[in-house]
Every structure is written in C-alpha cells, then in structure tokens.
C-alpha cells in the first residue's frame, strides 16, 4: 500500500476510527499488528509469512541469547539470526545479481546458468532485515532485553508506518515506547497530520513532477543537450530527496498519529559542506546503522589511518550494494567512500563548521556537485547509460534536444529558496500550524494546489525497490 494512494487513506481512516473506539491498550496493539500485516500483505500476501518467519526466529533467538550462559553461546545464537536475515536478503535481492555475474566465468568451465531466475523481491526486505538484525545485535551486546510479549516484538518488526522504506527503527528506540499506552490523541493527530502533509507535498507535488523530466532524460541521455542533462541530474537530485524524505515524513506523521515516535531520517542533506556532514544528514537511520553495526565492529578509526580508510571503503561499498543488486550502486558507494577518505585526508581537524562565507560556500558547492555527479550512477540503469550522461555533463558532445522542463525549474527554484531559508533560519523547521484556523485554511488551499499540479497516477516510492 502506498501512502499517496486512495486505499491507504481509506485504510488509515478506518484504522484510526477503530483505534479511537478501543478502550484497552492490548486491543489497540493487537489491531495495530493485524493492520500492519494487512498493509504489508496488500502488495503480496505470501510475503506476510516471510515477515512472520523472521519475527518468530529473531524473537526466539533473542530469548535464547538472554538465557545463554556465556558470550560464546550468545554469539552462536546471534549467528543464527544474522545467517537467516542475511540469507533471506541475499536470496531475494542478490540471487540474480550473483547468477548474472557468475554466468560468464562459469560458462568457461562448461557450467550453464540460466540468464534470470524468477525471484520476486519482497518490498522493503532490506529495511526489515536491517531492523531485526539491529535488534538481535543489541540483545547480543546486552543493550536491550527482549520484550516479554511476543506480540510487542511482532509489532516492532511489522509496524507498518516504517515497514517498507524506513526509517530503519532500532529496538532500543521503539521497544521502550511500548512501555506506555498509546491512545489516539487529538494533539498527536494534529502534529502527525502536519508532518504527513509536508511529506505528501514533497512526494506528490515535487518528486513525482521531477520524475517526469528525470526519467525521460535518463532513459536516453544521448538524445539531449548538455544543459538539459545537467538539469536532469539536478532534477533527480531533487527527486530522490523529495521522494525519500517525503516518504519518511509521511511515515513519521502516520506513526505520530498512532502515538509513536519514529527517528529523524533527513536533516537538510543538501546544505552539507562536506561529505561526512552529508552522511550525518542523509538517510540518517542507515548511515548510523552502518556506523554502529559495520564500521565500528570493523575497527572504525581505532586501528590506524590505513585501516580507517579501508573500513570506510568497505562500509560504503556495502552501503551501496544494500541499495540495489547492481554494480552501479557499488560504484556509487565506492565514490562516496572515496569522497569520505579524501575528506578525512584533507579535511579540517575541527568538527565545528566555519561561519558562512566564501570558503564555506565553496565547500558547499564542491560537496553538492560531487553528490549530484554520484547520483548519476545511482539513477542510471547501467554503466553505458551512466557514461552517456556523464559525457553530456562534461560537455563532450554537447549537442542534442534542448528541453528545460518548466515544472522542474520552478520546483528546483523553490527547493533552493527553501534551503537558503533553512540556513538563514538556522535549521528551524517550517511548520504549518494546523492548530490555528489560518494554518488549517492554508493547508486546504495547499491541497488544491497539489491536486492541480500532481501528476495523475500512484507512483511508487523510489526506495520501495530497496
């Protein structure tokens, strides 16, 4: 079910009404759990069994870890959880990638592999497995105790607002919230609706509009002129941000309406003045996950300079591969890894940002340009398409169709103004005060504007494929 679809609004309206009518927290949680499975099963009910399987195994493993007499036993149980989660991820997401890459070399030895295996990628598998793995690791490390009730753990694993595209919610963030009751409160509904509306506008008005332009140019970059390709790269830069942060806002808003807090996932990443800062602002739940469960266990920066760089590269390569089973994602991760290494090599010692001036502006421009160029690998369907786009952007063969999509220009201009405003406002968020009559009226007018300019059709979120 997609947040911007008709059926979601019906589903969520009914759910809120039912939750409001229920008097007991137990009943509310049971209903939320059922609703979460309905939400996930709406796409393909068969994968509800997969979700249930992951939940049962991880809960059982965590109980065994809790009871384990020593660290060795705990480690064995942790291995069970990691093997299951990573195995599922590898099977569903990387089987065809592996087959495609092994096909050529194995053919030389007379082993014939099929070109493509019919493996359906379950929506949000990367998010689900990372979430439950973080839970198991935290229990292993003794930072978290398994909840007493299986139902509560199942709700954590399947909580529908963040189930399919994050933010990746850790047990230590979510499970303590289950210690308190979550009745439907007007204040939560108001705040949640405001956050949801912000995400809805980002997704439907901005991202879906930008995708019309970016999709067309990325489909055949050789056809277009260099300025058009640059504009398309910028449009995709805007699209992926508005799409993903829009989804996150909607998830946080829906969660808030239900009385739950979800972690922040974006903090104006495009105002970053270096790559390290970018990763502290972009997809925060993933970058912190990679830091805590991969980079630091690899040794982090505690084992010398060279090893730090190797660890950074490994983390970013795997981070790239997490996004999709394609070498273009690995290249994207590698470029970011290299960027982080270069920043560590030549960056300032101090974490304190410089005041805004020419030098900081130059740092911002360099970082932003690097991020835009990297998105080309992320978006292109393969390397030839990425090279074709980069050739155009490098002004080699600049001729082609000039197309300056007016909607993209307007949206990018609005985005630029909002970002400058964010810097000037010292990152204080823009809030539409729905508790005031004027805010409510403006929200209605905003919905009219959305209705007019949003492309017809329900476009899935980009991160659903991950």
């Amino acid at each position, binding site marked *: 079910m997609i947040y911007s*679809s*008709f*059926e979601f609004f019906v589903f969520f309206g009914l759910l809120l009404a039912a939750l409001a009518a229920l008097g007991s927290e137990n009943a509310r949680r049971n209903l939320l759990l059922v609703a979460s499975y309905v939400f996930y099963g709406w796409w393909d009910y068969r994968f509800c069994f997969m979700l249930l399987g992951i939940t049962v195994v991880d809960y059982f493993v965590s109980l065994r870890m809790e009871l384990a007499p020593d660290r060795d036993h705990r480690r064995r149980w942790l291995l069970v959880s990691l093997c299951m989660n990573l195995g599922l991820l590898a099977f569903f997401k990387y089987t065809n990638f592996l087959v495609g890459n092994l096909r050529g070399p194995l053919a030389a030895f007379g082993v014939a592999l099929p070109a493509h295996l019919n493996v359906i990628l379950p929506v949000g598998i990367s998010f689900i497995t990372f979430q439950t793995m973080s839970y198991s690791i935290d229990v292993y490390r003794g930072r978290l105790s398994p909840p007493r009730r299986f139902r509560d753990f199942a709700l954590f694993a399947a909580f529908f607002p963040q189930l399919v595209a994050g933010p990746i919610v850790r047990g230590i963030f979510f499970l303590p919230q289950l210690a308190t009751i979550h009745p439907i409160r007007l204040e939560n509904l108001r705040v949640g609706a405001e956050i949801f509306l912000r995400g809805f506008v980002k997704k439907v008005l901005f991202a879906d509009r930008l995708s*019309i332009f970016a999709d*067309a140019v990325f489909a*055949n970059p*050789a*056809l277009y*002129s260099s300025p058009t390709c640059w504009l398309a790269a910028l449009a995709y830069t805007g699209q992926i941000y508005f799409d993903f942060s829009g989804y996150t806002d909607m998830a946080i808003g829906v969660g808030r309406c239900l009385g739950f807090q979800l972690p922040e996932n974006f903090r104006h990443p495009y105002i970053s003045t270096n790559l390290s800062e970018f990763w502290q602002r972009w997809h925060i739940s993933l970058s912190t996950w990679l830091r805590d469960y991969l980079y630091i266990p690899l040794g982090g920066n505690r084992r010398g300079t060279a090893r730090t760089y190797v660890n950074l590269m490994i983390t970013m390569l795997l981070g790239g591969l997490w996004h999709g089973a394609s070498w273009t994602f690995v290249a994207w991760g590698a470029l970011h890894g290299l960027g982080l290494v270069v920043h560590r090599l030549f960056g300032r010692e101090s974490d304190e940002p410089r005041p805004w001036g020419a030098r900081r502006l130059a740092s911002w421009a360099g970082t932003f340009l690097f991020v835009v160029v990297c998105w080309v690998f992320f978006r292109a369907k393969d390397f030839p398409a990425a090279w074709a786009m980069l050739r155009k952007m490098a002004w080699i063969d600049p*001729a*082609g*169709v*000039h*197309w*300056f*999509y*007016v*909607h993209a220009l307007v949206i990018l201009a609005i985005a630029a103004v909002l970002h400058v405003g964010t810097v000037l406002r010292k990152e204080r968020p823009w809030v539409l005060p729905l508790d*005031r*009559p*004027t805010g*409510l*009226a*403006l929200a*209605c*007018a905003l919905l*009219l*504007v959305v*209705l*007019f300019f949003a492309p*017809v*059709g*329900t476009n899935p979120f980009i991160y659903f494929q991950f």
Partner: protein
Amino acid sequence: MKRSIAPPLLTFLGTLAAALVALELVFHTFLLAPDFKFEDPELGPMNRPHVRVVWSQEGFGVHYTNALGFFGPELRAERPRFRVLVLGSSWAEALNVSPSDGFVAVAGSLVEGSEFVNAAQAGWSPVPALVLLRRVYPEIRPDLVVLQVSGVNAIEAGSVHVERDGDAGWRIVPPRTRSDLELRLKNATDGISRHSAIVTMLLQRANQVLADQSARLRAKFGGPTAPAPPSTGESSDERQEAFRWVLRQMLEVTDHILVLYVPVLSYGVERCANTGERDAAGVRRVANELVLEMIDPTEALCAEYLRTKQPLHGFHNAVMGEGHLNVAGHRIVGELLARSVEAAR
C-alpha cells in the same frame, strides 16, 4: 469557561475564502479556463461561443472562441475570394500554442486573399467533422475543405462515431443521451464550473483520480472492467471502410476536400520516424481510392528535426518530443498546407 467556536471558525472561513479567491484568480488568468463546453445533441460536448480559454497543461495559449464556438477570427461578413474550412481535432485546434502560431493561422497568413475558418475541436474524429460540415456548409460555403486526421479513426474515437448498418453500409451514432439523474447532476455542477476554474479543475481531477485509482484496484482484484468503447470491429480493414464511408459522405457535400495527416513522430539520436506508419498508410490508401490529395508532413518534420535536433512535438512544460505539435511544428505544417491550398486554388 468554554470558548466560543465562532471566532476561529470565522477566521478559518475568511482565510479559506481569501486563499480560494487568490487561487481562482491565478488559475483563471494563467492556468485553466472554467468549463467552456455545452452539450450539443448531435455532436456531444461543444465549445461555447465567445469565451476565454486558457490552456497550460501542454504548451500555453490564451484563446477566445468566436461566434461559432471555434478558435480563430470571426467569419468575415463579406465573403473573401477564397475560403477554406478546416475540420479536425486538437492538432488543428492548436490550443497549445498562441492563436497566431497554429498551422491553420500560419497557412491563412501565407495564402493571400484567403480566409481560413478553423472548425476543429479536440477529441474529434472525422465523424463529428462530417456532422458539422453538413450543418455549416450552407452558411460558410467554403471553396475548399481541409480534413485534418491523425489516423483512420471513425469507429472508436469520441462520443459521436459510426457503426455498421446492416449490409447497407454505416450509420452515424449520436452522442449517448444522459439519464435524468445524470442531467440533474450535470446541471447542478455546470452552473458553478462555468464560472470557476477551481471547481472545473476539481471536477476534472476528481474524475481522473477516481478513474485511475479504480482501474488500479480493478487490476489488483480483478473486478468488472470498464465497458469497451463503441466499436463494430477491430480489424484495420473495418476501420478503413468506416473512414472511407465518412469521406464519401463528405464528398456528397463538397468535391473539394484535402486530407491533412498529422503524424506523431519518434525522435532518436540520429533518427526520426512516424510511430503511426500503419495509420498513415491507411489514410493514404483511402485518399488515393477517392482521388483526394493527402498532405503528409512527416518527411518535412523529420528533415527539420535532423537539421536542428529540436523535436517538432512537445513543450517545455510537458514531455519534449511527445504530445502535440509545438510552434516550429505548426509552422512547417502550416507552410505545407499553404502550398497545397495555393495549388488547389
């Protein structure tokens, strides 16, 4: 003490009204015209006379309908030396560009002493064009009729179409008559949507969104599908026969007919091709059989594209290379049309 609900409600309504008025002004002026159609019993939805129409979905144009409800100058009281009546669809109507840039206007400006009467309307197949020709011919008395087509679409497109009439041939099926309830609903919404761009937009978008979402849900759950559009046959021969019959009916009204085929092109890096080559061949075959001149601007449009690398279809506010002709495309078609009209004269 309990707070009164009146002040916040009034503030809400006042702010909402102010926002709606501001939006209405912006929409009305720059984005979308209020509903400008009425139901014609023979032709279905028709443009009202003397209304301002703003088009911004694809390209941009501000047009005014004339006394006949079409886009172009008023019919001259004094008959010119040479009068051309252009029938067709959105291609000839050219709402996407400014009124003087449409190919009918371009041709009109190039053929001296002529008057081009643009009687095209978006969504029209040759069938409503035939109905209109029969209706306006005695008044307009054109020296030449140009029928713009984009294929042999007489059976399936639009609310007016033709269907087989036994062995005798074909007959025109008038627009579907509305039920009482539909009429009452339409009358209720018409009064507001005729004056408000926002209401028009809301009704249009609500229809689109509902159609899209219900189609998606039907596809998911396999519910009943929408009724198939009126059609008496799917084969290309059937479609050509219907198209031939419509042209024959037109020839009974006037002998002087020119067929203008407007292609949809696919633009590649070093290539340009007509995506409806079969349609073009069908139109050409029927035109040849009836000894009618057919203008096909495909070659000229492709040559221009390969020279300039700029598509002749599409706009900067829509997908470049797709959709309707842009200003450059209209110019080329207009020049070709002018040349053929001069020759026919």
